[in-house]
Each structure stands twice: as structure tokens, then as C-alpha cells.
């Protein structure tokens, strides 16, 4: 159980978050938009829609999201889709099906993003997974 005496680390944490200027309401709004991405990543998700979900202007939304999570909503959504795609490829779905299931309309766009994020094309990743199974 937690100790009575606070450590140096805990005191620092408390100071940092006491001074944090982001209001609690904004954390909640940004989290809602992130939850929206996690739910609808397989659909066409627009930045305007995400900003609306967080009750913010586009500019403000991107700035606050990046401050909270260290990356832009666009990159977060891309990484989320690629991570889901890896799981679907491992489950044995075809590349085209995976591409559509994670919200991309073009296989070539999907393949080049997949390669950029993982270092492998979807096909190479599929082959790698299949050879690991053997």
C-alpha cells in the first residue's frame, strides 16, 4: 500500500500537475475525441469531426491533442490503424480486406503507410508472420 511519507518523485509529480495549465475539462474533451477515433477508425474520420467531438477549433484541437499525447491526431489515427492492420494480417485476412477494415480506400496508400510505419510492406509482414508460425 502507498507510504505515508511522499517521495521526492511524488512531490515533483504533484507540483508539476498542480502547475499544469490545462483545465480538466479539456482533458476530458480530448479523450472523447481519442475514444471517437478508437471506435470509428475503420470509417472515414475527418479532422473537423474530431475537433467538433472535442468542442474545439481545428487549430486548438491539434495543438492540445499534441500537447497531451505527444503526436498529432492525424499521426495517432494512422498509428492506430496500422496497429489494427497488423492484428488483422496476423489473423489471416487478405491485404485488401485489411486495408478496407482499417479505414483506407486505396491499397497503395495503405501499403506505403504500412511500410513507412513498420519497415515492411503488408505482404512482407504477412509472409514474415506465416514463416514465424512454421
Amino acid at each position, binding site marked *: *500500500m502507498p507510504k505515508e511519507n511522499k*517521495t521526492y518523485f511524488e512531490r515533483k509529480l504533484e507540483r508539476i*500537475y498542480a502547475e*499544469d495549465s490545462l483545465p480538466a475539462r479539456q482533458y476530458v474533451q480530448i*479523450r472523447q475525441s481519442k475514444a471517437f477515433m478508437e471506435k470509428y477508425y475503420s470509417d472515414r474520420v475527418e479532422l473537423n469531426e474530431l475537433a467538433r467531438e472535442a468542442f474545439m477549433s481545428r487549430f486548438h484541437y491539434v495543438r492540445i491533442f499534441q500537447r*497531451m499525447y505527444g503526436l498529432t491526431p492525424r499521426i495517432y489515427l494512422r498509428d492506430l490503424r496500422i496497429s489494427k492492420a497488423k492484428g488483422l494480417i496476423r489473423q489471416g485476412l487478405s491485404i485488401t480486406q485489411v486495408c478496407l477494415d482499417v479505414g483506407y480506400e486505396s491499397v497503395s496508400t495503405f501499403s506505403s503507410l504500412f511500410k513507412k510505419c513498420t519497415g515492411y510492406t503488408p505482404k512482407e509482414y504477412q509472409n514474415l508472420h506465416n514463416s514465424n508460425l512454421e
Partner: protein
Amino acid sequence: MIKIYVTSVPVEDQGKALDFYTKILGFIKKKDIPLGEHKWLTVVSPGEQSGVELLLEPMAFEPAKLYQRSLKEAGIPWTSFAVDDIGKEYQRLCNLGVQFSIAPRQAGPVMIAVLDDTCGNYIQLMQEL
């Protein structure tokens, strides 16, 4: 493209550390290669077995021991692991006798908790909200 493939936590006793990191925390042993009096001993997350490995690194270098001890005394976690549900994980680990210096609490956009790995380190658990 450059990638992170291994990171490490310093441990006093590799055997004890392997027990804690696998049987308690839930990692899986990946490499166990004898290297003189110690081993190249790594564990991985069950969900990402081809992902980043965590090296349970023996503390054989005196200044490193001092560094490790100083961090521990200040309550500073050596590293941080992600969990899906920090409340559930906290309860599970408490039931297994793990000691926490910080119970789950919110820290900006994440929830954190800090546990004692019994190998000389505090480890932070993090759930992204």
C-alpha cells in the same frame, strides 16, 4: 529505419528478477544466453513477442549500483510499462503481494501507479486515458 529493440532494467539477482517479471508482472522469457558469470536475459510482452525486449541487466558495476539506489531512494521509477486497465492491474498485483509506492492516480492525460520490482527499482505503470 532505426528501431528500439531492447531496453533494460538493472537487477540485483537475475534469477529473482526473472521470477518477478514473468510470474508476477506477466512478461515472457525470450532470451537466456550465458555470458560469463551473468546472462543475456530478456523478457517480452505476451502481446508483442517480436517487439521490444526488456533486458534484466545484472548490476555488476559499482557506480551503476549507486545510481540505481539513489533513484530508488528518491522514489523515481527506473522505467514505465503500459497497461490496459491500471485499476485492475493494481488489484491483481496487490493480491500477489506487490508493494506500490504510488497507488493509481491521474497525471495529466494518463493514470499512473508505481510499484517496487523487488530487484532494486521502482517501476511505473501507465494507462493512457
